[in-house]
């Protein structure tokens, strides 16, 4: 993240770069959530085979699956919002460029052709609208990111229970312990992405003020 900021040498990061980065960063949460979902299916299969030994663990798999599904839905929503923001930011840049060009025209030209003022106002209105849309999108993104965080916290607390239940699974202990490890790995990965998302959101909020 810092590398990206540094690479701009003090120049302001274009908002569409931030939005596109957010899109790509949080899109990977979907992959991780899909892996989690697969992990839960795997755990269900093991606990079914384990019978009595797996009863404790089987109660947890539903929660894992639910959290994974919730994350996929949130990641999709975030993806759509971030993609929309990227497009709106590009439009905004284009309209700002138009405004700059129109401002360069001599004032007598504007007096001569009132249509230029309309054109300027239209470009201004469009870029303001894009900025407003982005402000709403930032608000929604923050909300969804908070929900993903909450899901991840749930998963994090499930890991401890997974390990306890895995240790009670007798001959199936290793297989279920491996599932708990996979969930742990996914949670760490998700935490990384969420932290990256947080930083990007902070930058976006700063720029939108």
């Amino acid at each position, binding site marked *: 993240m810092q590398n990206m900021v540094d690479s701009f040498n003090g120049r302001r990061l274009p908002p569409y770069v931030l939005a596109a980065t957010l899109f790509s960063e949080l899109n990977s949460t979907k992959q991780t959530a899909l892996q989690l979902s697969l992990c839960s299916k795997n755990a269900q299969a093991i606990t079914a085979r384990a019978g009595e030994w797996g009863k404790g663990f089987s109660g947890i798999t539903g929660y894992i699956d639910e959290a994974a599904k919730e994350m996929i839905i949130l990641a999709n929503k975030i993806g759509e919002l971030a993609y929309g923001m990227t497009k709106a930011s590009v439009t905004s840049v284009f*309209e700002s460029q138009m405004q700059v060009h129109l401002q*360069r025209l001599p004032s007598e030209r504007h007096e001569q052709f009132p249509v*230029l003022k309309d054109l300027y106002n239209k470009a201004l209105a469009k870029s303001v609208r894009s900025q407003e849309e982005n402000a709403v999108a930032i608000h929604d993104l923050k909300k969804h990111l908070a929900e993903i965080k909450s899901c991840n916290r749930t998963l994090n607390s499930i890991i401890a229970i997974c390990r306890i239940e895995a240790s009670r699974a007798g001959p199936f202990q290793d297989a279920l312990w491996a599932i708990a490890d996979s969930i742990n790995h996914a949670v760490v990965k998700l935490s990384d992405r969420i932290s990256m998302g947080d930083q990007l959101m902070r930058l976006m909020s700063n720029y939108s003020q």
Partner: protein
Amino acid sequence: MLTRILWECATHKWIICGRDPNKPSGIIDTNQYMIRTRDRMLILDPGGIELFSSMLNCALEWAPIHEITELFASHQDPDIISSLGLWDRALPKARLHAPWLWEGFIRHFGMENTEYVRIKDEGNELDLGSMKIQFIPAHYLHSSGNFSVYDPILKVLASGDIGAALEPGQPPLFVENFQEHTKHMTAFHQRWMPSNRAKQSWINRVRSLEIDYIAPQHGRIFKGDDVKRFLDWFEALEVGTAIR
């Protein structure tokens, strides 16, 4: 940006915009031509995005914005048409006449409101109301889909990159000493023009037209006897020399 009438008659006038002292350094100087009829204006190769405000300012000196109805792109290069995205937003009702070959590429510059009018390979005419211009094929000179513009009334050929010269500073508009001028054209034509066959085909076609002026997109304009001198010089020049 310099702008002035080059040639005029009862039905229309040719206007040049170029020699822009405010153009950002490092970008090639370009000539933009405009054909103004009574109630319409065509901008030939409207130029790069960096020039847009200067060009808009010049254009409005000759026509109100709603009368700028036609744009022409001889080919797809950025110095020809990268300003399209801004013209597209600025002109309420415009058509872009450009080689059919480049449509999918030129649209990358941004085109929501403008109509793309495909020029077929053999060229065609554009009716501007009080006069008609002809799009003359100039494929591979230098672009694979490329046209010159011919005005049979004022006998002007806008030749795009053919006849272009890379001359430092702000040279005069017209060639004054042809021999001297070739110094600024030779390397450009040898490198940018890839095909001797295409070159000869264009020369043959153009020799059948009555031409008083050849107006390239870069550098000076050829007039009178220099038109024939240029065609002879170009015919003798070996092009496509960068093959290693």
